[in-house]
């Protein structure tokens, strides 16, 4: 800490520290604690608050555990988010490599511009695009029937649709970290490996992938996070059988009106995300500091 004052002087250093404190404590930590606090208290009408019933209980979490379906939805959300993550990873790796080491300048520029466009619009519109495509009487069914691949229209809304829509919505969050990581790979590493007689597969497996590890981990963390925490895509592209955990949280808040239980569900979601993120980082043997750059 003393170094901050040494570097910026008392006044400036003080202002900087105050801003940081304001942010981390005021905007992140305290509200977070508040949410946890709310999740541990029962929902009470205003009249009863502060009364004998206003005590810490685990009811809200117990409800989640005991519910016949919610636990399942919880795990399905994790699983589907992982699926989204994996799909985007598979889709992105070849493109990232191509962009970083194969494409010519203009090809790279064009591709980057093309990719930025959907990203610069908003998530709801990206979801809407898929909402239109996947509609029962939408263009996908029309095209497939025209091609003779389908005899009658299929319903695409549901878990499959949600995964597709999310993969589309978040693909850039996977692509850019991997691309950045691969960009920093010295091309001589590839040359050296080939020079030593290595095949293309081996070059990727032994040289490029290990190098891109940090980028891959970052991309996975981001995409997983976003998928697990997304409300738009499941709301738009879901079907009767495909509810996501975020929808449950939303319902507790805005349909049933039990905020405390909603907070508990939110805490569960956050805990799950952090667990998976830390697990991913451990799996890739990447630490938080080197990821997310």
């Amino acid at each position, binding site marked *: 800490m003393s170094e901050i004052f040494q570097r910026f002087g008392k006044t400036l250093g003080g202002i900087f520290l105050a801003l940081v404190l304001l942010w981390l404590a005021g905007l992140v930590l305290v509200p977070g604690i508040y949410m946890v606090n709310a999740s541990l208290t029962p929902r009470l009408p205003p009249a009863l608050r502060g009364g004998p019933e206003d005590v810490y209980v685990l009811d809200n979490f117990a409800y989640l555990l005991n519910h*016949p379906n919610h636990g399942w*939805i919880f795990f399905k959300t994790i699983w589907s988010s992982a699926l989204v993550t994996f799909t985007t990873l598979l889709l992105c790796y070849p493109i990232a490599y191509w962009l970083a080491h194969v494409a010519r300048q203009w090809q790279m520029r064009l591709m980057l511009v093309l990719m930025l466009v959907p990203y610069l619009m908003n998530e709801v519109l990206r979801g809407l695009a898929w909402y239109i495509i996947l509609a*029962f*009487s939408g263009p996908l069914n029309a095209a497939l029937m025209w091609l003779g691949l389908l005899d009658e229209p299929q319903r695409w809304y549901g878990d499959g649709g949600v995964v597709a829509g999310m993969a589309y919505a978040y693909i850039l969050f996977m692509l850019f970290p991997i691309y950045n990581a691969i960009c920093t790979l010295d091309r001589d590493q590839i040359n050296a490996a080939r020079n030593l007689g290595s095949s293309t597969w081996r070059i990727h497996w032994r040289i490029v992938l290990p190098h891109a590890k940090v980028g891959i981990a970052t991309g996975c963390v981001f995409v997983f996070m976003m998928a697990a925490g997304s409300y738009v895509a499941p709301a738009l592209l879901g079907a*009767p059988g495909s509810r996501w955990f975020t929808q449950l949280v939303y319902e507790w*808040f*805005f349909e049933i*009106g039990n905020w405390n239980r909603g907070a508990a569900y939110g805490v569960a979601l956050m805990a799950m995300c952090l667990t998976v993120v830390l697990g991913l980082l451990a799996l890739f043997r990447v630490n938080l500091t080197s990821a997310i750059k």
Partner: protein
Amino acid sequence: APFIARGSWARASSGELRLAAWAGYISPEMLDAFEKATGIKTTYTPYGTNEEILSMMRVNQGSGFDAIWPALDRVPNYVEDGLIQPIDESRVEWDRCIDSAIKSSETLGAVVDGKRYQVPTDWGTEALTFDTEKLPLEYGSASYADLWQPELAGKVTVRGHSALVGLALWLEREGKLPRPFLDSFKDADAMRANYDVILAEAIARKATIAQFWSNQNEAQGAFRTNGCILGQTWDSTAAGLKDEGLPISYLAPREGALSWMEGISLPLGSENVEQAYAFINWMLTPEAGAMYASHARVNTTAKGADAFLPQEMKTFFQNAYPEDAIDNLWWWPVQENWFVEIRGEYQDKFLSA
């Protein structure tokens, strides 16, 4: 800081009416007409479900709007949470409103602990919408049971919680409910006893459902683009589809159409009360009522509006409620907070199954 606590510093109390109403209820022409009649400008924020506006009111502790438009049967929820204020009955032109609506609204939720909290402006129903080509229905034989027939797998749309009520009415007629269904709204034990049976039946028959709707747009989408041919929807939903030229018709089932009334309430934090009353009174004029009814496709409580309604609306009404259907309406009882919460639980179990 009161400045912050107001939640919005962009708009001050300006004499402008801030109105939150159901999506599709208010047309720009209506706002123009209102302004012409009273000189009051209006900003209109649409919402799609009762829950949406209720939770918005909760989040903002009853501020943010000058007038809202909840369903009559949900008014007690707002009162319990202290979100709306009693109506000053002296400022309402009651003689413009249909008497039966004033009367029945008292028991259906508008009056709590002797105080009136809502002025009824319209009513509507939720019944069967069907594709006249693929699935013609006849009054008398048509029933909520039709929604749950296995041969309609993947072709039906319903709303989560009201589907359970429609199903309940059919089950009650079949004698399968342990307690009278209306007791469910008064007593939690009765409710759970009934709803356990209803839920089990619903889950067993869930395969027919292609899509759940929660607002008008979704319900219409089910027919327009999602391949549904039968649904339990609002009358306005069907009317809208029919207007588009789709082969859709609307019919009350033999158990009775689920009927609701709606009206305007004043939130606790209403800042432009004057303008809100002006709006209520304007809505009850025959011209406004007719404008409203033909735009929103619901039935107005304004006296004399019929005269201004277009012919096809009248036809739609007659087709929807033939014979004794109008006497047979099933009015939503008051849904108190405890009921809504348990209802939500069952709906959630139904949706999640």
